[in-house]
């Protein structure tokens, strides 16, 4: 929902980043306000996941220019864990497996880290069990997954549900969901999308990275951005996604070629 008077949550200006010596982000501009849902689309390799990881603070990426303000403060100065505690959430395209670390314990420690930052009291094991059981329903996940190691042996779809479960527990202000819809069967897609809609509120914002219109049929974006060559090349309303579905990315490539010559 677009409201002109809404607070600005995230303001990305001319963001540039490289991995090792390879420049990947070449000047990204994007402003996200409370209550909004943004979708980012673009060809494979255009830099979508890189943008999301730079925002979350992945150490492999070096920021070489530009700025990011999160609720008015310099996001790039903060450690990744601090960004998370302040309400920035990244649902990973490829969640990693962490053998030996119990999913339940992991969820409890991270939930308490976020709660502490919000000034809420820590939940003990019992209080947390109650909370997690309630939130499991948002993604209709089997409690058996709590007993396993973090993501270990989870199927692709189960990992994605576990990401949304974390989102439901952490109550983020800005949630970036990187291809959370990929690899989900039709029912799972509906459940996950339902969860995201359920968690969206006038106070928070969502950035969906996706390749598919079918997700945007269930979660209606306020803005659609097209990424190419490490930049946001075009921004429009939800109809831009339909246009892409129709015409493909060739025209984007042409625009990019013009830009890169200039």
């Amino acid at each position, binding site marked *: 929902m677009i409201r002109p008077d809404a607070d600005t949550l995230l303001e990305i200006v001319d963001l540039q980043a490289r991995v090792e010596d390879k420049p990947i982000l070449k000047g990204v501009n994007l402003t996200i306000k409370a209550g909004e849902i943004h979708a980012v689309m673009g060809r494979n390799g255009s830099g979508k996941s890189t943008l999301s990881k730079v925002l979350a*603070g992945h*150490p*492999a990426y*070096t920021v070489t220019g530009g700025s990011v303000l999160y609720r008015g403060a310099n996001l790039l100065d903060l450690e990744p*864990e601090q960004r998370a505690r302040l309400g920035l959430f990244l649902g990973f395209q490829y969640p990693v497996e*962490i053998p030996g670390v119990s999913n339940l314990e*992991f969820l409890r420690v*991270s939930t308490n880290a976020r709660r502490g930052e919000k000034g809420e009291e820590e939940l003990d094991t019992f209080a947390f069990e109650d909370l997690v059981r309630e939130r499991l329903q948002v993604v209709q996940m089997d409690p058996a997954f709590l007993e396993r190691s973090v993501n270990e042996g989870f199927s692709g779809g189960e990992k994605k549900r576990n990401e949304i479960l974390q989102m439901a527990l952490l109550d983020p202000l800005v949630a970036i969901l990187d291809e959370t819809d990929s690899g989900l069967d039709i029912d799972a897609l509906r459940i996950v999308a339902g969860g995201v809609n359920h968690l969206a509120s006038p106070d928070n914002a969502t950035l969906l990275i996706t390749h598919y219109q079918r997700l945007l049929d269930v979660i209606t974006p306020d803005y659609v951005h097209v990424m190419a060559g490490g930049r946001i090349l075009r921004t429009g309303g939800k109809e831009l996604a339909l246009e892409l579905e129709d015409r493909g990315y060739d025209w984007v490539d042409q625009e990019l070629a013009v830009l890169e010559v200039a």
Partner: protein
Amino acid sequence: MSSSTSVGDLVSQPYKYGFVTDIETDKIDKGLSEDVVRLISSKKDEPQFLLDFRLRAYKQWLRMEEPDWATLGHPAIDYQEMIYYAAPRQQEKKASLDEVDPKLLETFEKLGIPLSEQKRLSNVAVDAVFDSVSIATTYREKLAEHGVIFCSISEAVKDHPDLIERYLGTVVPSNDNFFAALNSAVFSDGSFVFIPKGVACPMELSTYFRINSGDTGQFERTLIVAEEGASVSYLEGCTAPMFDTNQLHAAVVELVTLDDASIKYSTVQNWYAGDENGVGGIYNFVTKRGHCRGDRSHISWTQVETGSAITWKYPSCVLQGADSVGEFYSVALTNNLQQADTGTKMVHVGPRTRSTIVSKGISAGRSSNSYRGLVQIGPKATGARNYSQCDSMLIGDQAAANTYPYIRSQQPEASVEHEASTCRISADQLFYLQSRGIGFEEAVSMMVSGFCRDVFNQLPMEFAAEADKLLALKLEGSVG
């Protein structure tokens, strides 16, 4: 910025126990000879059988050579440059703790081992060994009510010579290996535990070893005997000051279980490991062996090895009694230039004997960490079973981990299972945890304790938390 934080920073924590206690000591001049062996024995006023035992061991040692089969490297040890006996100067071992030099009590208190009546741990009896001698043993009277003997080995030689003569050197013969022979010749003190028939020891027993002198070797000797149906849980801990020279620690531990007896022996080893350039640190060459002499007896070794410049240590079980059980649970953490070559030997002699080996090696920095284990199944060990699991975790990309499992079976029917794995803490795993609000250090520590859980679960309750803290300490550090 997070990118400047590396796991390497975390594993390099300053050593907390590196202080030296300034106390007058009674030392024998450096160097080793028959006279020195005789002098140690006479200082301790030992009976003839023990002097003979020492002299025989000394002669055997002279003909032996340092073992070289482990993947360890160090400059040659000069056995004539070392002091073999150092004791804080105090007349007799004190009957009451009130008479012990307050400096010594203070030292142990600083190490987290309060000995005084008011402060000591409520369900753990402690024998405190400082350099070459035991300075105090708590709860002796209470244990004596149950017939349990817990004292220093020097006192046991005086008060229970028959038990010492019957059991000493029967599990680890003095010519077992170079370091065991050296220990048998010059051992100065250590603990003695005797649990009589049918008694379950009413409290945890524990010995705390402290090396204080810079030029002294420590050669402690521990003997634990559990008679028929008896049981005991015992824990040893160790620390040393930071010196830039290397000190030798060559201990021998012998365990004996008769029918239906059980001994659970746990170690939390935190000797000084040397600095980040590998200067200083303890050379830890230790022979530990348990003998399940009786049927259905049970010996379990649990070790958390975090210190020492070099660790050479293979706590083993000889499973002679029918249906006896041997266990080895180990966590070995190496960092900087530390080297560990550790593992176990499970020697199945009797029928239906069973053994379990769980080894977790964590290597960080430029350290090297090897598991070396032997499972031997003799011709009479019908229906013997072994399960081994050896996991290695690498932190950073300069550390080395090796696994050397040896299996020798003369029993075609025996079941021997071996599983091994190696993993690396990846930047992506750490980032995943961080991106959920978990700090870098806590993230590392969560992954490491997850990795070690199977072993920590084996530690006595009172110490499981200690071990967790110790690893966290080794892995903790200023971020940034």
